């Protein structure tokens, strides 16, 4: 069709710098949200198994809401609505810094915390009561039985879904584009606007996304293989 591919315009000079800064922001967003999501997820699981009824209801509602509302809507809610709910001082504080990154990071973390807590919980529930009894029969208390017997096994069961959610978390950082965070997808569109090299720009960033996804998938597969080799 008379169209000649030219990656040079994208992989050099200013555009390459845009690309790299976008990639860096994507990775930062992924990592920070992942850590926060996991911490929140663990807290949610603990709350849910605390035996305190209102806490359990809260977690159930939390999980259902975050799983049944589109993540993009959650991101938009954080961006447009949450600052309105803050007191004046909080709004000013947000406006003074680049709050988009922070808000999308929180949106991703709060959403994926729900998914991760469910992964952890189903891992816990899959460990038969008899394992617990065997630990108690040896003389371990509740917490130590949890520590040595139940949690190590539950964590192994939870690892495959957790890896899956990590991958989805990474991919969904691209939603940050909707509120103007300059991560990889946004930068790709900027480059595309600047060069009109649509095909090349999207090829390059798709390949970048794929490479990182494959690293996560391969790491996950290796981890799972190692777990399978040991016991269960």
């Amino acid at each position, binding site marked *: 069709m008379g169209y000649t591919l030219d990656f040079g315009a994208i992989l050099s000079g200013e555009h390459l710098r845009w690309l790299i800064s976008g990639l860096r922001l994507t990775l930062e967003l992924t990592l920070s949200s992942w850590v926060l999501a996991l911490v929140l997820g663990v807290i949610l699981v603990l709350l849910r198994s605390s035996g305190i009824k209102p806490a359990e209801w809260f977690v159930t509602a939390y999980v259902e809401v975050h799983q*049944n509302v*589109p993540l993009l809507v959650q991101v938009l809610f954080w961006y447009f609505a949450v600052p309105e709910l803050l007191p004046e001082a909080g709004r000013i504080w947000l406006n003074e810094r680049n709050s988009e990154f922070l808000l999308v990071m929180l949106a991703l973390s709060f959403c994926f915390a729900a998914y991760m807590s469910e*992964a952890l919980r189903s891992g816990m529930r899959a460990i038969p009561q008899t394992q617990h009894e065997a630990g108690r029969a040896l003389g371990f208390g509740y917490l130590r039985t949890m520590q040595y017997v139940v949690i190590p096994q539950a964590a192994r069961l939870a690892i495959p879904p957790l890896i899956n959610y990590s991958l989805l978390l990474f991919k969904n950082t*691209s939603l940050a584009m909707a509120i103007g965070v300059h991560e990889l997808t946004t930068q790709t569109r900027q480059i595309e606007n600047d060069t009109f090299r649509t095909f090349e720009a*999207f090829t390059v960033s798709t390949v970048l996304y794929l490479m990182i996804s*494959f690293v996560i998938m391969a790491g996950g597969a290796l981890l799972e293989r190692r777990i399978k080799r040991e016991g269960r």
Partner: protein
Amino acid sequence: MLDILREYWLLFLVGQYPNGPLGGLVATLLVAICGLGLALPCAMAIALGRISPYMPVRIAAAFVVHTVRGTPFLMVIFWSYFGLPILLGRPINGFVTLVGALVLYESAYLAEAIRAGIEALPRGQREAARALGLNYWQTMGLVILPQALFNALPSLLTQFVSLIKETSLGYVISVNEFTFAAAQVNNQLLTKPVQVFSILALTFFAVCFTLTQTARRLERIVARRRNGMAKDGEPTALLATEPTP
């Protein structure tokens, strides 16, 4: 919140229709249903490819699945946005773009759900069909796929919920769907983001939660049927019905 609803419910529901293009919640559901309808046959083909006796077919199917699973849906939308017009040789509207992206993306995910359904069947099923003299396609079409699709029904419904949630990304390429309608209302009102986005979120929640609960009920029914049929000692692998954002 109620006054906003009273004023804008039609815009939320159908967009500019009938004076302009159909939009709103109805458009969202329509896109999702079209997406599912077109993706299912592709997914079945990919699932059969994943377990094909021919290595090159298996590799090709695995390649498609892993590539799609490794790409953000937003990227797929952009590929559809720029690529589909070139492929089809004419400009396309936002709906077709969005449906195209959904079909491409969801085929891979649905295929994995169907494959899990197939692999959860006891080996004896295929052997029994082959022993009767059915050929490969008869075995798949008459014995394996009907059972596998039944087993996979809950996961397919869960995946449909994901599909509905994914249509919200039409907002990014300005497709007139539900999220876009809400953003429009928000722009008109300017001072009521909490109320507007709460309406958006609550409506999505009502639709998706209902379907999720239905999927859970289905899963129990399917599990009962399967356990009823399984013989002693045969492991009844649980079907993963994990929801995704």
